[in-house]
Structure formats: C-alpha cells, structure tokens
C-alpha cells in the first residue's frame, strides 16, 4: 500500500477522509448503493487497497473513474462487500441454536427464517442442515439475502472449495452435528457440491439492509458480523428492521462481538444466550 502523500500538514480534517466521504456520496447518487453510514475505517482500507491496485494516485481520481465507468463500480462493490464466512462458524453458537432455539421452533407449524447478509451462503446451509437433522426443514422457509449479486450467485450454486471441507467438518462436529458431514456434499475434483435437498427450502434474494424494507412474520432473523460494519445510526435502523420483521417471541441472532447494549431497540429484546448474542423479541 502506498505510503506517499501522508506527510501533509496535521491540520484540519484529513484529506483522504474528505475524499472518502465524497466518493461514497457519489456512489450513492450514481448507483444507489449507500455506504455513507458504514464504519469509515474499514471502507477506507478497502478503497485504499483498490487505489493501490488501480495505479491511480488519489481517492478523488478513483471517484472520477467510478462515476464514469460502471464496470469499475462493480469491482468496488466487491471490495466493499464483506465475504468472510464458513460453515458452522463459531460452532458453540450453532450448538446453542440447536439446543435453545430449535425446541421452540418445533412448536410452530411453519417456520420462516430470514438470513440477512448471507454472503456466499455457508451459514444458510449450516442452518438448513440443523433444520434437516431436527426434522424441521420440510416445514421451513429460509429467505437468504445480500446486496451483492456476485456472492448471491455463489450461494445459489453452493459449490465450495474441497480444501475447506476439513475445517467445515470439524466445525460441524463441534456444533453438535448428528450425522457424517460428508452426507451433505459430493466431492468433484477440487470442489464440494452441497446436496440439492439442502437448497429446496431456501430462497435467495437481492436485498439491501440500508435501503430496502421489512420481511414479514419471521420466526428467526440471523445476521452475524454485518452490523459491525455499520455506524450507530445505521445499526439502529437495521435492528429496527429486524424487530419489525420478527413475530413476538421471534429470535434474533447477531455476531459474537455485536450487541444491543447501545441500541435504541434494546428494550424490545431479551437475551436468551448472552455470550452468543441470541435474543428473543418480547411479547
């Protein structure tokens, strides 16, 4: 990453911070994707990484290119999208889900789950596996959404590098898995293709948490490690969206470092498993 250009005066607001705000404003006005309320430190790292790769000198130059070249915007969109995920990531979370949440879900005749910010789908299929093993998958509907069409397409395909299956298997076992993980995929060369039966009750859809609306009457909303990228204003807005999407007594699952402690909607939820950020909407 370029080090030049940092020896400017230590006065006034940092120029790059100003340029970043202008870039994100331009992206919003031109393309409708709204990153203005994202945490700026992360966005700036990603943009500077793209800047270093592009051979351009400043974020202002990058802004010009983004506004005039739609294909470059789509590259930037991938940069700003967070796609770190794995199957049964945080196995203890999935164990709690299985032991604390599933017994309640079993009491409903039909179960609706919204997986917001699903990225390439690993956690969606982790959920589908648990539902299947608990005999719930055939009466469940999972809505898996993301703003990034590229990752959604990967999620639909459900093809993952075979090299990751060892880690996924270990996670699956630690999360209380009841079968052999290899039952759920077939390996072809370097790829592992998940079984079709896991996809049957999943609908993948383009949805932007920043600009789009509520999903109705959900029993469970899962959104792990997306809110950490939002500022407080946007976090409050999105948690409000989740609150309005959930039935009374519905479950909200956040990432292990995310919390409702400072949220405007804190009072609407009770913690169920505090350590793993599983909450229940109050009646």
């Amino acid at each position: 990453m370029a080090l030049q250009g940092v020896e400017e005066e230590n006065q006034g607001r940092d120029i790059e911070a100003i340029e970043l705000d202008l870039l994100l404003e331009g992206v919003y006005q031109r393309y409708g994707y709204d990153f203005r309320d994202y945490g700026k430190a992360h966005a700036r790292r990603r943009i500077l990484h793209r800047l270093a790769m592009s051979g351009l000198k400043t974020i202002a130059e990058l802004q010009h290119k983004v506004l005039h070249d739609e294909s470059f915007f789509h590259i930037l969109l991938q940069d700003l999208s967070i796609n770190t995920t794995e199957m049964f990531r945080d196995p203890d979370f999935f164990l709690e889900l299985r032991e604390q949440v599933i017994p309640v879900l079993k009491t409903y005749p039909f179960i609706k789950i919204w997986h917001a910010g699903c990225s390439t789908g690993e956690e969606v299929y982790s959920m589908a596996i648990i539902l299947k093993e608990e005999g719930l998958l055939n009466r469940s509907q999972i809505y898996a959404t993301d703003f990034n069409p590229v990752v959604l397409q990967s999620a639909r395909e459900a093809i993952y590098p075979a090299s990751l299956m060892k880690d996924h298997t270990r996670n699956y076992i630690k999360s209380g898995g009841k079968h052999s993980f290899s039952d759920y995929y077939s390996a072809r060369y370097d790829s592992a293709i998940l079984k079709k039966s896991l996809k049957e009750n999943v609908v993948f859809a383009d949805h932007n948490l920043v600009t789009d609306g509520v999903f109705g009457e959900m029993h469970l909303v899962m959104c792990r490690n997306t809110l950490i990228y939002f500022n407080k204003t946007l976090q409050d807005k999105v948690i409000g969206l989740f609150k309005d999407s959930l039935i009374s007594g519905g479950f909200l699952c956040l990432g292990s470092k995310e919390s409702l402690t400072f949220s405007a909607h804190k009072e609407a939820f009770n913690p169920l498993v505090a350590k793993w950020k599983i909450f229940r909407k109050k009646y």
Partner: protein
Amino acid sequence: MEGGNDRNYDAIVIGTSAGGLDALGVILPAIHTRIPVPILIVQHISASSDSFIVTYFDRLCTLTVVEGSEKAPLLPGHVYFAPPDYHMLVEEDRTLSLSNDEKVNYSRPSIDVLFETASWVFRSRLIGIILTGANWDGAHGLALIGLSKGLTIVQNPLNSAVSRMPEAAIETRKPDYILNLDEIGPLINSLFGLTPTQS
C-alpha cells in the same frame, strides 16, 4: 480528552506476536496508572482463544484492561486488546470498530490494520510500538505512523524473544527509538511527565 495542549500524544498503539505476553508483562505494569491516553494492543493469538489475556493483564497491572468492543469510546488509562479473530480499527470519532475481514499478513487481528487506522485519526499525536514477534505484520503500519510524524518505538531485536518483527519494522523505516524492554515503560511515562509508577 479535553485540554491536550500540554502534551504531544493522544494514544499509544502496541503490536506483538510470539513472545508478546512476556514482553507486555514487563511494559504494562511499568506504565503509570494516570497515563492520560488510551493504549490499544494487537497481540497475535489463535482465533479460538477466550479472553484470558484481558483477565491476566487486568490482574497484572493497575491500568484498566478490557477487550476492544465495537463503538467503544477510547478512554484514558484504559488498555484495549483486539479480540481473537477480529481486526480492531479506530474510527474518526475516536471510537473502536471491529471487522472480520480477510486476514492481513496472515493475521487477524492484524497490527497493520490497527496502526494504519489509528494513524489516520491521531496522525502526529500517536505513539506506535512494535515488540517481539515472528512475522512482519506492523512494519508497514509503524512506517505510516513515522511518516505522519508520530513517535515510533521498536524493541531491540537483540533483546527480543523473537527478532523477526522488530527487524522488519526497523528495515521498513528507521524508528525514533530502539529500546530494551525495560526501557519502554519509563520512556512512555516520561513523555507524559509522569514519574515511575508506584506499583
């Protein structure tokens, strides 16, 4: 952090990997309780670790030691450790944020991520310290702090449990100080006009 004219620095960042727990065990207890700035630390650690580091150092020193949490405002006299498997970043409003973005220099948390984002915010009013470690994470971040006219300190590689990380930092950009472990705490105190800690 009101005032601020009577001193030159608003924050301290520290990065270390292999051998870091022992090194921090020398430095943190030596820092004065009334240090008027926050101390942010990345210690490379396995993704599945619990928060034993925080508990350990909170007992060991008189500073308040916590795990960095998202949106936490940075308080003077507080030590913030990056949580396992998350990068820790500093936002323009001087709060922390976390990310589970891809690893940087094979590390999450990464020292470079903390140092770069802290440097953007604190610029010349930042002290960066690289201690013992087995890879080159932090070298770029410390250079950025130096170029932004912050103060840079590297543990003497000859005196480091593992010399690779201090060496990489020194090779990337000459730091203001190369010090033995037991010299770092006293220097920090003196920069803030504090006499050696009573503990």
